Each structure stands twice: as C-alpha cells, then as structure tokens.
C-alpha cells in the first residue's frame, strides 16, 4: 500500500517569525493526508505553528557533481564575503 503513495517533503515553522524549515519526508495519498500525517509524525509535541507540504517530485535538486562550479566561489575576492561587519547581539537567526 505505502509504496503506491507518493512521497512528500515536510516544512515546519517552529514559531512565528522564523522561516519554515525542512523536517523530513513521509508518504501520503494527497496533500490533505500529507498535512494530517505531518501533524502526527512531526508536530505533536508543540514543535510547530505552521506546516507546508510539497510533493517531492516538484523539487528540483542540484547535481552533486556540479558542486564545484555552483558552491565554491573564488576565495581571493574578499569583497564578496561580508565578514567585515560586527553583528549586534540582539540580531538573532542570521
């Protein structure tokens, strides 16, 4: 039975003001069931205030073989890296 159900990716917002974060994936027949299942699997101990579900097939992923060109910028161009600023302590979640 479960092997016929599509896979869904579950995003949960832990509290207001934070962004939705990927929590995991589960199987469900449709979006409504995915929401119900996500509630039971991931948020039963007050872990969240909002859930998004996205069918996994709708996610386009980068290819690990392309990591070099995608994620490794030239390290000698220091001006690209905003490391010269001091963040005040009050700014969280940066």
């Amino acid at each position, binding site marked *: *039975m*479960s092997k016929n*159900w599509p896979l869904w990716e579950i995003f949960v917002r832990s509290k207001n003001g934070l962004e939705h974060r990927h929590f995991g994936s*589960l*199987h*469900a*027949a449709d979006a*409504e*069931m995915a929401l*119900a*299942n996500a*509630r*039971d*699997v991931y948020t*039963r101990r007050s872990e969240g205030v909002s859930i998004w579900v996205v069918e996994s097939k709708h996610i386009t992923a980068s290819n690990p073989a392309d990591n070099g060109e995608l994620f490794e910028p030239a390290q000698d161009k220091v001006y690209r890296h905003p490391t010269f600023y001091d963040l005040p302590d009050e700014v969280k979640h940066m």
Partner: protein
Amino acid sequence: MNNKDLYNYILGIADNSLILGQRLGELCGHGPTLETDIAGTNISLDLIGQTRSYYQYAAKIQGEGKSEDDIAFLRLERDYKNVLLVEQPNTHFGYVMGRQYLFDVYHLLLMQGLANSADETLAAIAKKGIKEVSYHKRFSGDWVKRLGDGTEESNEKMQEAIDDLWTYTDELFDLTESDEKMISEGIGVDASAFKNQYYDEVTALLKEANLQVPEGKYFIRGGKKGVHSEHMGYLLADLQYMQRTYPNMEW
C-alpha cells in the same frame, strides 16, 4: 464512598476512553503505513491520557486510598462500564476507522456538554479533551470518506464495517441511574438530548462518503450495565496481565 453516583458517572465516561485506547494500542506497530500507525497510536495516547485524569479524580472521590492503576487494571469484567462499540475488535483498518468515527462524533458532543459541567474538575478535563477529540474526529471521518469513496473493494469493506458497527450506536445514548442523577445535579451531560444531532451528522458524512446509511432498527446494548461482548475478556486479559501477574509492579 462519598458520592457513588459521581464515581459511577466518571467511570462510565472514562472506561470508554480506556478500552478504545487499549484497542488502538494493540495496533501499535501494525498500522498499514508508518504514518497511519503513528496517528492511531497518538489517538490511543490521547485517550489514555484522558482516562488517567478521570481515574485519578474517581480514586479521590472513592476515598479508599486506591490509585488510578487499581481502577484501570484490577476490576472484573462486569465492573467496566464502557459501551460495546469501543470493545469491538480491530477487524481491519476500515473497521477501526469506522469504529473510531462513530465514537468520535459522540465523544465530541459529550465533551462539549461536559465542559459546562457544574463539577469543575470534570469541566476542566473536558475542556482539555475537546481539542484532542476534534482532531480524532477529523482524522477518522476523513478516512471513512476516503475508503467509502475509494475503490469498489474499499467501499464494500467500509460499508460492511458501518453496517456491523451501526448496531452498537444506540447504546451511546442510554442513561444509567447514575447518569440521570448527575444530569439532575447539573454535573452530567444528557446524551439522549444530542442523539438526533449525532445521527444527522453521521448520516451527512456517510452520504458524502458514498455509503448507505443502515436502516436496521435492531441495536445491541449491554456494556453500560457491565454486560460485555465475547471480545472483552480477551482485551482485559491483555490489559490486566502485568498487574495480575506481578501485583503492585511499577515502571
């Protein structure tokens, strides 16, 4: 005992939650999918959590120094006052969801009434339970619709389940002597008063689920008086085994 009617009234409500919770607990690790397995176990835990609150209160009223565990594990079959509906076996997933739904609709109406009880403790337990029970009903009702309105096979199985379970629904609205006394004191909820509302709501969902509403007028009753079906003994054997074999054992 300080108030035997109140004690009986509490057990009448709590035993339903305990026995249904035990039934769902039997399915832990055996659900059709990981997700539905967790959902069923969650509902079981909700019900057993509610049961604990009721039994703790009942033990206090009883005033014999007994604990919630004594009430849960050390009574004889005839002393359990749950309705027959909740002790019916886990025949198949559709049956489990049908049983759950037919109980949940009743359960929510009862909790909503009990939240206005003159007894503050019962009102508080009910208020806390309403959110949980609303979710139970949403979950079970959703599955009844999915299976009823699913394939030919799922529709057939769901229909058979509803036809069978239907015969246990009328008992939900029977009033015992203790029920009537508690209603007259503003503590209890008159379940017979929301019987029509119950059947209207269930009928609407069954129609939406492409299921026939059973027309039979023959109903089975007895659980509220302690006269249970043949399944109850096996369920209690499981439930009581640890306390009977190792008296006073604790985790």
